[in-house]
């Protein structure tokens, strides 16, 4: 009995490394199979669910492509790419007014006829939106003149929109551009 069991043990000891290798090999194959199966499942989901396609194609790949193609795009250019003419104008106002400026905005009716964005709430037509780009400058809308009379008297610049606002200046302008920002008083030398 003793000899037999010893032989058995010796035989199984010889088999163990081989068994382990087979086990490892099986585990590896199973591992690969599960991975392939999972990747196929994920690919099917990506193809079948439009929302997932949107995430991968539009939100990730499209943006990574833009970033790769324009790695050094300046912040104003990025704003312009997203916000168009509205940003170009507000950036112009920011660049051409001092930080302590009090700027008069046209009434809503003027914006309705302008070239600015008319869809939704965003754009130059919305005072809060403008403040984001113009702060610390102060903005007052024409329709708020009676609400804030003191501030109205402190206006230093006028936002010219679609030709509106030239009559607020105390001087005549030779070439009247439809969209610009001008000081309300003519400064010496200007």
């Amino acid at each position: 009995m003793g000899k037999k069991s010893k032989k058995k043990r010796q035989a199984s000891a010889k088999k163990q490394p081989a068994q382990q290798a087979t086990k490892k090999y099986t585990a590896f194959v199973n591992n690969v199979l599960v991975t392939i199966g999972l990747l196929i499942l994920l690919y099917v989901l990506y193809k079948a669910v439009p929302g997932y396609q949107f995430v991968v194609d539009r939100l990730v790949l499209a943006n990574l492509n833009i970033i790769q193609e324009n790695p050094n795009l300046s912040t104003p250019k990025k704003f312009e790419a997203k916000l168009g003419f509205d940003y170009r104008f507000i950036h112009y106002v920011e660049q051409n007014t001092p930080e302590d400026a009090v700027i008069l905005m046209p009434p809503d009716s003027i914006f309705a006829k302008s070239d600015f964005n008319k869809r939704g709430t965003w754009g130059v037509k919305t005072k809060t939106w403008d403040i984001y780009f113009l702060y610390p400058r102060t903005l007052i809308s024409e329709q708020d003149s009676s609400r804030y009379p003191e501030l109205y008297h402190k206006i230093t610049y006028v936002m010219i929109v679609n030709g509106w606002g030239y009559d607020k200046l105390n001087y005549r302008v030779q070439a009247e551009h439809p969209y610009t920002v001008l000081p309300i008083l003519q400064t010496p030398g200007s």
Partner: protein
Amino acid sequence: MIIIGLIVVYLLGFSITFFVFKRNDDIRLTVQEALGLSFLIGIGVVTVFMFLYDLLHIPIKAWTLLLISVIITVALSWKYLKSIRSYFQNIRSELPHFKSAEMNLAWTAVFLIICFLLIGSVAKSLYWPTTSYDSVAGYDLMAKVIAAEGKIKVSLFDMDVAGKRGIYPPLVEGSFAYAYLFGSDSSKIITSLTYLSLILLFYALLRKYVNPLNAVLFSLLMIVTPEMFAHSSLSLTNMPGAAYAAPGLLYLFLWMDKKQKPYLYISAVLLGLNVWARNDGVVFNAAGFFLLLYDAIKSKRWKEIIIFSTISFLPLFAWTIYLKLAMGVTQDRFVNHLFWDAERFGLLMDWIKRLILDVNLYGLTFYIFFLAVLINIKDIFRDKSELLLMIVLSFIFYSSIYYQFDDTKQDSLNTMMRASFKRALFYFVPMVLFYASTNKRTRWLFAKIDAFITGRG
């Protein structure tokens, strides 16, 4: 400069987290958990400092915030310095090791897909400046002005241009202001870190119940949820709200399940910061409260519910009182009595159905949840029943808010559902996926897969 600011936030958050967890040596704070909690708690607490400074008329500046953060960090970690050192020495063993023979290829493949998506999200977030209207005319505007003027009650309120977004609790705009105070051009670094923290935390919480493959796959499902992924690179409040509320309730579930005190404290802190980000997040605190109340009545132990309620509701009360006393604002958007309007209820239900089943917005997230509930129906009252109850309760509470809205004081129900409720579903995404991942049947399925992969099956 922003790097210094962020390191201080992480250290502050870590010191608070470690302080809470050290109260119970049985719980091991994992790396993912530590990273996720450190940022969320750190940045949240910094905005509490901003609020206190505003009350005390101390200017909100980079150096004043650094000073208080460093003092609190040192005070909390001093006693635990040895433990912290040994914690960091042990961290290495927790990081994934990529020995080819032991590697779970499926896990690695999903992990790489997650990395690809997250790189895309962070790159988009950091590349594009803030342009979404709600942020430009609201949260990010407030952040810029808070950073410039060094106070919360900024000059925008004098000109009546702060708007309805200006009176949101200060966590989101305060955290954005923190980025500006430390010289960042954009506040979106905060959005990205909040999102990454949510993902790390979600994975860490899943790993307490399920195997790595299950956890990583359900993390991917959360990340790829379309509407939520879109918000991971926008400076808005909904995703940050979800980053606090969902883990907050999941930690509460952990407390109920394992009865380990640190989970209760962390839950209370996260839910407290949740109402510090958005008022409507209070429904999650309320859901947690009712479950704890039931637990307290059963066990006749009241200490836990008192601690939880104090920490989690206090920020909401503080902000409401501040709005009323300092700004003269009372939030009055609701019909102040209960009523029944069948048409309104029908419209609400119709919207809810349309939104949660819209695969363009939420992918398969809610379908997976319903499937999980269905396959787990036999054990529905035994397996993760508290979690399911939390989800259901908070969903009912949240929908009730929209039902009770007074249309004469704000946009119509249609507009609110289309614009607001749609994003509010972010709150539920981590929770429903957590249920789907950790229920008995899914665990059984992934255990089988794991056994097959390792050759034991």
